[in-house]
């Protein structure tokens, strides 16, 4: 089953926790909101989902 990373910037409070602990450096903040950092790889490990206090980032199965 394929997975994908989903961001919900409406809920993101820009705390930077996901950015700091992503093992691939695949995230960044822009104007106080999380976004994928260009030129990096997300390995869909889900570390960001575990530690996001606002449930604004998560990994889910891809709908075909």
């Amino acid at each position, binding site marked *: 089953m394929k997975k994908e990373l*989903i961001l*919900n910037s*409406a*809920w993101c*409070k*820009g*705390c*930077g*926790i996901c*950015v*700091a*602990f992503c093992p691939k450096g695949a995230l960044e903040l822009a104007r106080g909101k999380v976004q994928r950092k260009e030129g990096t790889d997300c390995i869909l490990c*889900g570390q960001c*989902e*575990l*530690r*996001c*206090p*606002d*449930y*604004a980032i*998560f*990994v*889910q*199965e891809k709908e075909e």
Partner: protein
Amino acid sequence: MAKVDMTDVREKDVNVSDLVFKYMRPEHLPHIWCPGCGNGIIMRDVAQAIEDLKINRNNLVVVSGIGCSSRAAGYFDCSTIHTTHGRAIAFATGIKMARPELEVVVLTGDGDASAIGGNHLIHAARRNIGITVIVMNNTIYGMTGGQYSPTTPTGDYGTTAPYGNIDRPFDVALLAAAAGATYAAHGDCFHVPETTRLIRDGIAHKGFSIIEVADVCPTYYGRKNKKGSAVDMMRNQKENFVTAAQAKRMSPEELEGRYVLGVIQELDFPEYTEAYEKVIEKAQGGAK
């Protein structure tokens, strides 16, 4: 991450994970907590523990007192009750006595559980009533503006300790263990899988369980004590807190000043509502 069982859950209509959609009330999210507040992380751990245990939400009661942390009860989609300051464990005791078949989980703060509610805590532990208490310990009174609490480390600052706190702090899990808690553990916000497992085992345990979780309050504790941002406070947990497995391989010198995650006490002792059921049988002369 294991797949969340979405049977009987209404169709997802919000951009949120299955776990959060199933156990929380997305219409009340995002929550009121500050950016980087650890409460949201702990609340998710609790949801994951309940999912892992396959507990039916209809049999789950979440009880809280008053404080930032106690606002958590309002976000869970099950039977919830947001009670008065310090009395969450007293309400939970009543619920468990009336309906022993229910899973009763208390979400409480360090002030709620160990200051105004300290008496309820030690006696619930002593009785070994089958509830699970999760203490979201940010070592401060967050909601009322940063007053020091019974868990504020000696020397740390609060709005009521502008020259540094002269009290010695409680270790809440240890306090409950001394009072007879049959399951007591320490968790934190950074080590999510470990803390979730401790919460899961605490809920599964028959008898009184307490999991004291080291929280992150960047707004009051962090600012008053120059602990930096939420990221800095999480990094401190990553670098200075060790799991029980890691601690086993460390010397006493290496362990100096470290916070060790894991179970500190696990005992086998009759659970209170079961003991009480026997009293009822006896009083009715076995002719129940």
